[in-house]
């Protein structure tokens, strides 16, 4: 049973539809990276999942229940941090922990002090005096201490320096419970997600352009380099090779291809470019894939590239 299930979700803000007929699901145990350009509606989607905004249409189910029908006990198993969410700055960290702990039956005080130590946070400082990175760590601490079954994070790494990002990831991986949890992480910056996520979704134009396991994605998208033996202008790749982006110059072609399976890519390329001296096929990086997808979405809605 998927932990998060969204069907036909629409959210209208005035006349603009930020989310259009959105469908996606996050299976149990996944670390799901929700990617998409700035302003693509990721934050709105996450706020709807958390019940902070009401959808205009469609359905959201969390842990099998309609999200509006969740009991408090179930809600206490969901952790949430958001870049824009204001922690009560007037509180000291220890006061915030004291405020939150009784609300969660599963609050683990040992884990909380462990994370506090790892993050180097002084519990007696007021939250508003902490730096941005420290505040994000405090937020992560508050979200992780109750050992949630579902963790929803909205742009946790944005604006953090490399050291803080590292510490956040460490803290996250360290608290991954042995019982297993599900994480939904939204970001416009791919960075660390490439290695962390095992499932990826791409939100652009108010819709999920794709949503699939990371392995499958990496299998599908390949970067190919074709080096001709001479300086001739290479032929076009052709429609059979669904290229997301192509660069051609004298003597070489570089392309990002969404490979649909069927004939092995190697052979297909060799057939098309018989005279090539070298054909290189390697995994495309997540960044390459999403830049190409974002460009396509921006230039007039994308043709669905789902497998």
């Amino acid at each position, binding site marked *: 049973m998927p932990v998060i299930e969204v069907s036909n979700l629409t959210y209208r803000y005035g006349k603009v539809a930020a989310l259009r007929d959105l469908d996606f699901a996050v299976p149990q145990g996944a670390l799901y990276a929700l990617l998409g350009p700035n302003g693509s509606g990721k934050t709105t989607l996450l*706020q709807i999942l958390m*019940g*902070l905004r*009401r959808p205009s249409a469609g359905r959201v189910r969390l842990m099998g229940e309609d999200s509006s029908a969740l009991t*408090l006990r179930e*809600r206490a198993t969901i952790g949430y941090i958001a870049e824009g969410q204001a922690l009560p700055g007037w*509180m000291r960290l220890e006061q915030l922990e004291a405020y*939150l702990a*009784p609300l*969660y039956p599963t609050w683990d005080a040992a884990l909380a002090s462990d994370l506090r130590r790892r993050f180097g946070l002084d519990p007696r400082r007021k939250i508003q005096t902490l730096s941005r990175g420290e505040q994000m760590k405090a937020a992560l601490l508050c979200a992780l201490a109750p050992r949630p079954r579902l963790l929803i994070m909205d742009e946790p790494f944005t604006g953090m320096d490399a050291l803080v990002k590292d510490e956040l990831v460490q803290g996250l991986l360290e608290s991954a419970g042995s019982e297993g949890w599900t994480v939904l992480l939204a970001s416009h910056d791919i960075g660390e997600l490439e290695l962390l996520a095992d499932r990826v979704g791409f939100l652009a134009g108010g819709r999920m352009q794709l949503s699939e396991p990371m392995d499958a994605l990496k299998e599908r998208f390949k970067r190919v380099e074709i080096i001709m033996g001479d300086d001739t202008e290479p032929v076009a790749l052709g429609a059979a090779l669904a290229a997301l982006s192509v660069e051609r110059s004298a003597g070489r072609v570089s392309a990002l291809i969404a490979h649909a399976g069927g004939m092995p890519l190697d052979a297909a390329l060799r057939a098309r470019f018989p005279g090539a001296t070298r054909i290189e096929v390697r995994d495309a990086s997540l960044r390459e894939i999403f830049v190409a997808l974002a460009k396509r979405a921006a230039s007039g809605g994308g043709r669905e590239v789902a497998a």
Partner: protein
Amino acid sequence: MTWIAQVGHVMRKDLLQARWFLIVYLGVVMLATARALEWPATSNDAFDLSAVFVVVAGMFLVAFLVQADSPIRSDAFWASRPIHPAAMLAAKLLLALIVVVGAPLVGQLGALTTNHVPVAAMSLLASRSAWTYASWLLIAMVLAAMTSDLRGFTTVLVAIPVALGLVIVSSRFPSGSIGGGMSEPGRLATLMPVSFTVAGVGGGLVLLVALYRKRPLRRRMWVGAVAAVACLLLSIFVTPQSRAASLGSSSELSIPAVAFQVEVREDERTAPELTLRTEGIQLADRLVGLDSGVAILRLRDGTTLRVSVGRMALSRATLPTRAGIRWLGGYADARPTGAKVLRLNRSQREALRAGIAGATIEGQVTVLEPRIVATLPFRAGASLTREGRRVRIQTVNHTAEDSLATLSVSSIGSASRVFNSDWAFIWPFDTPRYALVNETRGEAMMVAQGGSGGSTDAIVLPGAWRVTTSAWLHRNAEYFDLAKNAAWFDESRLVIAEWVLRGRTAFRAEATLRQ
């Protein structure tokens, strides 16, 4: 954590979060209480609006509390935590009631107690003040829930109630329906204020619950919010006015017959003049007056003419004293007669030329009884505090022609149904009448009140008011020559009475014609 435990948990957090705000608020409350207790430091005019400051400060405080855990902001911290929305709302409401309303209420009760206000009146005043204040706070909570920050709240606070207030006030002034008017109460005042209260309080609470639980589209909610606020404002400002109903039948009130005479004086040069005369009744113990009077004239040509009489005194009364007291100045003996020239318009004057065959006087008659409220030795500095009323004789001058004494009278109440026998200016509060009684010699003298200045002061919260009047007493011209010796005055006591509504009934009598 159970629902109830969460309410307490949030309340504790709120007290911690708002502690500085609370301290300032309690400071304002203490100043208002000091003013109500009449501490000398607070008698400055700057403290005049203490009660208003309390209400405004309280409104901002509850707005702060509501917005600390906003029900509409999508970045609200509490909304992503497992807190019952109903528990969150309940915590805010309880804190508003217990602390924000509670603190000034304690001050008010203290001030009322030191003024010896009787317990029944005290609980009535306190509960009315608390209810009014709670309504203001509910308005603030609704507006704060609908706005994202204090700046937005302030903007809306100024705009909406001011606009609505103007609407209310402008429709409340048709014809002297302020206070206890005997004229027809304004149209709004006859609507049941109870329905406003129910709609306002109910609507406000329903709206808050909906906002906290459902997070609906804000735009739609504004209609409901404005409606609830309007109802609350109406319930605050429109006080229940008793309709001009009869109170006691005429036989119960035992009004003896009054002789009316209608006189028409023709004059070639000026238009005909219509005068209504009465042969007054001397009722020793009550005042009788005609209100909303109408003279129905049956004319010789068969038509009927209605002329408004308005108000007219029908008797005089003295203050109740022990038997055997002789009232100086013949005050008690004169048989009062009254005459009033009735105002006619052009068509009425034309109609009168036909001549009057008969006349009937109709209207409402009000009966007032005097009640002694205080007796003081007649010397400067004497004072008495009883049942929320305080009288203090400030100066006494035996010989001056114009001023015999100055008094300071203050009384505590809300709105009462007592009338000034002159009916010149109707105070919503009792207006005493004065006499000097010399028991030793068995003589008494009515003393006229000339002029008074007054001020109204709220006691910590609006709803309980202290009205302070300074009254200047002087002797009537009639007995200027009497009793000028200081000894007479030294022996006498100042008796203060108030007039209490005994009854009101319809009245009808035939008038005789006098040519």
